[in-house]
């Protein structure tokens, strides 16, 4: 009788790259993280409309004759009206009313979609006067994708692939912002950007006491410029490092922006909010901790024995 010997392989067959990629793209994250990012993003919009991007709201006073529409306006959405007073007011008030409600987490798909549309139009208004801002791509992606997840409650530890995909794409958008910014420098500035005076230009126009001293030290300017390009080009490395190191790299990114803000008063606030998609936000639960702390205190008060009265008294 012939013996059938199994063909024992030493290693399991390698997983096809496409499978690995799909697993990575849809790597699930807990729903609690979704709730946390939603709260952060939608509350930020309130701050954005009232404070950070006040200029957009002031457009209500600016005649539409100064409006220079972008391609998206002209070719994709020709029915978008010029930013008359009414349009600006609708966007502003719509965002201010809907965002806090969405931050609580109710009607995430409906409110989230409405907010995305309003915010996008608001951005078109803001960016159609001769200058386009570049710190919102990842934030816009976050606004577009958060409504695709459905209901998510704070503290919910159930994993979701829908959420995983949305977060992954937001993360990719954050890194794309850095990586492609380096490309833009080479495309519009050429290699000379590295040893030119771009940073001098920026500091002269927007410098602070943190950066003005650098104007007298050209070598510091050049070193900083090389450092910036290196930082941007190497940013995708975050997807290849150990998950445990990732928060430290993100911390480093946040530090970079802190220094940029101190040096030339440019903050990338919407981008920084989107960058939180890399972090385990579900672990940060201030309201929950406060409630637990309060419970502990009141619980202790309730457990204290009542003063003993003399029953014979």
């Amino acid at each position, binding site marked *: 009788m012939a013996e059938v010997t199994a063909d024992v392989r030493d290693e399991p067959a390698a997983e096809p790259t496409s499978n690995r990629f799909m697993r990575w793209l*849809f790597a699930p994250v807990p729903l609690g993280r979704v709730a946390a990012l939603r709260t952060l993003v939608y509350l930020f919009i309130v701050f954005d409309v009232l404070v950070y991007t006040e*200029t957009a709201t002031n457009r209500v006073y600016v005649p539409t*004759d100064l409006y*220079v529409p972008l391609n998206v306006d002209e070719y994709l959405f020709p029915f978008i009206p010029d930013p008359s007073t009414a349009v600006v007011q609708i966007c502003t008030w719509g965002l201010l009313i809907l965002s806090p409600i969405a931050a609580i987490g109710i009607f995430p798909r409906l409110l989230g979609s409405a907010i995305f549309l309003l915010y996008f139009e608001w951005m078109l208004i803001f960016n159609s006067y001769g200058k386009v801002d570049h710190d*919102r791509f990842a934030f816009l992606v976050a606004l577009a994708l958060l409504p695709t997840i459905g209901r998510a409650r704070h503290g919910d530890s159930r994993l979701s692939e829908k*959420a995983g995909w949305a977060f992954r794409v937001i993360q990719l958008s954050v890194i*794309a912002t850095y990586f*492609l910014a380096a490309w833009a*420098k080479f495309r519009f500035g050429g290699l000379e950007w590295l040893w030119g005076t771009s940073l001098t230009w*920026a500091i002269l126009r927007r410098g602070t006491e943190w950066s003005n001293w650098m104007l007298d030290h050209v070598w510091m300017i050049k070193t900083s410029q090389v450092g910036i390009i290196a930082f941007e080009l190497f940013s995708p490395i975050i997807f290849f490092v150990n998950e445990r190191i990732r928060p430290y790299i993100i911390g480093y990114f946040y530090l970079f922006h802190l220094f940029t803000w101190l040096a030339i008063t440019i903050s990338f606030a919407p981008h920084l909010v989107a960058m939180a998609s890399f972090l385990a936000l579900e672990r940060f639960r201030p309201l929950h901790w406060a409630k637990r702390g309060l419970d502990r205190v009141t619980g202790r008060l309730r457990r204290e024995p009542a003063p003993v009265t003399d029953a014979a008294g």
Partner: protein
Amino acid sequence: MDVGRLGRRVRVGFTIALAAAVFYGSLWGDDDDFPVGPFRMYSTSRELNEPVADTQLYAVNAAGQEFRFTEGYTGVRRAELEGQMEHFEADPSRLRFLAEAYSNHFPDRPPVTEIRLVIEWFEIRNGLPTGESTVEEVVSWQK
């Protein structure tokens, strides 16, 4: 929450489309292609001896007072003035819309009757500012 077959396909399709749009924007597009335009923050290189421009607006109101016409008054940012410079140069009367914006925002103040758009050029030598600057009048408008 698991994603079904269709959901997977739609999502992968969206991811690819977004990536394509953003790479197209960065390689061939421009600011007009917002939101997928190139990420050009401070992307132009400056020569070591090239002066730095600071675009400024000055306004004179009906009471004869002259003041710096800043973004808080006009609702328009400096970078936007620069982005629209060609339009202003081609038609200086376009500046009147800034006066209009000011009146809309501050109806109780005397209206602006004259606006000057100037550029202050800061001299740079070997990458260092010399402390000198010259002011260039670009366009002006009077009511």
